[in-house]
């Protein structure tokens, strides 16, 4: 059974049509000992078929350790949201369901340039004065 309804698909088609540059979801999965990898794979397979501007590149976390290291992936399921040759450092750990799916869409829109970050000026100034690498982790649940 498809996870996305026809209405979902149409809505996503419209959203992805706005992407100014192609976006790639680099997906890491493994066959054993990963409860949610199958669900993640199914949703990403469906999402990847919607638009030419969005591709899904699947890697086996166990067999492709080099790729996992390149993207800083330490566990699965994981998704790196990247554009053509640029990686702004957005990662998802866990299956993109519920709230996480909404966040993934937002990441695709931002990385694909369909929308500007549009942060307040004071926020932009602060971001400009960051002097060391900042690693922000946000913990969420599907609901």
């Amino acid at each position, binding site marked *: 059974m498809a996870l996305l309804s026809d209405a979902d698909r149409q809505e996503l088609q419209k959203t992805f049509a706005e992407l100014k540059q192609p976006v790639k979801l680099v997906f890491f999965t493994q066959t054993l000992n990963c409860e949610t990898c199958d669900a993640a794979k199914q949703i990403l397979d469906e999402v990847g078929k919607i638009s030419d501007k969005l591709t899904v590149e699947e890697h086996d976390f166990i067999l492709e350790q080099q790729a996992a290291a390149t993207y800083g992936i330490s566990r699965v399921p994981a998704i790196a949201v990247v554009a053509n040759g640029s990686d702004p450092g957005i990662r998802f750990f866990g299956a993109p369901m519920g709230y996480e799916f909404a966040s993934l869409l937002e990441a695709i829109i931002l990385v694909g340039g369909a929308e500007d970050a549009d942060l*307040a000026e004071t926020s932009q100034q602060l971001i400009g004065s960051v002097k060391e690498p900042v690693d922000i982790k946000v913990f969420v649940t599907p609901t």
Partner: protein
Amino acid sequence: MRMAVSSDQVKATVVGAAEFPEDVRKYRISGVPKTVVNEKVEILGAVPEEEYVRESLTPFTVTQ
């Protein structure tokens, strides 16, 4: 994520807490969303953008 696309220095990771119980213990997650920045700053719950950016980045910026 908006911060990550705005800066090469900033990376953003979204973690499904239910799937990684070891993190729930490690970061003492009592509610969501919970933000942890550089293992140092913690923000619990959703807060307005400017406040969120200020709290998460200020310790890591050049003193003005």
